[in-house]
């Protein structure tokens, strides 16, 4: 059977890996190529590269780094950040990306999902949603979690999947950076709503949180995290063994 996936996420700004808490207060951590290589050899099942640069120069630097990573690392790579057009898909797929994640670009223009899925296949299009509880409902936020779109999140995700998104990343703003565990209620609501792989993001602080995630929600396909991996609080080989000891199928 398909294994549960462990996915480190690398936020890239000006050619370096950064990770903030609650999406603010970014701090430089490491060199992306070196870090990606370390993760690949330690058993990461996939890597996500997120471009948080706004400038043209930064974007060029990001694609250069992506090409360097993809020429040395042979596991699936997902790329997100600044994806607003089908041409943006083309730009990163040419550098060796396997999947492309859309967020604000799809909120502005949902047809981006449909157009990209028609051109590259559903499996290539990942819908990433930053979600926060507002007035008792799950609300979609845009622009790196800074702007409330007013859209209800479950409806938005269903629409995205109907348009052709082949996978969904759920980033809970409520649990991100707090390290008290994944947002199980939010994740369960998304899993119940769609029949494509769902990736949990936001809140991982310990190995027990990953065990809890996969035990509580058997439909979840992957757990994504950044700082717990970047700062060495969780070593991926240890995490894989811990999951295996809890009868969760992983690649070891």
């Amino acid at each position, binding site marked *: 059977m*398909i*294994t549960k996936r462990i996915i480190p996420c690398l936020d890239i700004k000006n050619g370096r890996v950064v990770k903030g808490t609650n999406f603010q207060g970014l701090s430089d951590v490491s060199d992306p190529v070196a870090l990606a290589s370390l993760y690949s050899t330690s058993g990461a099942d996939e890597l996500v590269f997120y471009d948080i640069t706004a400038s043209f120069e930064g974007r060029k630097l990001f694609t250069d780094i992506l*090409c360097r990573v993809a020429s040395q690392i*042979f596991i699936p790579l997902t790329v997100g950040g600044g994806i607003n057009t089908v041409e943006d898909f083309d730009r990163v797929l040419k550098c060796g990306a*396997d999947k492309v994640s859309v967020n604000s670009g799809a909120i502005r223009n949902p047809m981006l999902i449909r157009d990209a899925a028609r051109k590259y296949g559903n499996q290539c299009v990942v819908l990433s949603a930053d979600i926060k509880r507002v007035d008792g409902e799950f609300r979609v936020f845009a622009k790196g979690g800074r702007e409330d779109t007013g859209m209800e999140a479950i409806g938005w995700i269903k629409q995205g999947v109907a348009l052709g998104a082949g996978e969904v990343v759920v980033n809970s703003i409520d649990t991100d950076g707090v390290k008290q565990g994944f947002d199980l209620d939010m994740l369960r609501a998304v899993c119940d709503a769609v029949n494509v792989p769902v990736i949990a993001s936001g809140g991982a602080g310990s190995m027990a949180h990953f065990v809890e995630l996969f035990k509580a929600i058997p439909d979840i396909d992957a757990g994504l995290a950044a700082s717990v991996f970047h700062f060495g609080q969780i070593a991926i080989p240890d995490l894989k063994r811990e999951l295996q000891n809890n009868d969760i199928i992983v690649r070891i």
Partner: protein
Amino acid sequence: MIAVIDYGVGNLFSLRSSLEKIGADVTVTSDVSIIESADKLILPGVGAFADAAKKLRDSGLDAVIKEQAAAGKPIMGICLGMQMLFEKSYEYGEHEGLGLLKGSVVPMAGVIPAELKIPHIGWNALRFKRGSNLLRYIKDGDFVYFVHSYYAADCADSVIAAAEYGAELTAAVERGNVCGCQFHPEKSGDVGLAILKAFCEEEKT
């Protein structure tokens, strides 16, 4: 020299990089004379079968590949490229393949339990069916990365490994000088590189 056949289907950056990583002398090409002079051929492919088969036919490379295979040149198909080695595919209609291997490509929908997601995407374990050159550097149970919705069936004489996903899905095939894998060796970490190495090296006798 290993020729990766470029017929306008999909992106070959990772495949080229992975072959370079294992030290293979690789050329990505659609040039008939280069394909004819190559020691071995790799037929890649992603997307829809009918579209890829048409591109291969329109380029005239289908005949070249058949000639080269008939002459005994080792050829490896990857993902959709593996599916094209078979006689036909039932992906949206009925389409003719290269016919280098016996069998046909069929949808997994209706074969696997309804609660399993399609495509079959992610890391899954290989279950060896018999010994082979292609998988000689890896072991039964090793994980590789799959992305597909159709699989090769009625190919008992060539299957060397399967993956369990509600049913046994053909994962790798080998018969004489023709072999292939449904999964992506160029995205399967060290296991995938070891498979590519086994193909690119001189075969065990």
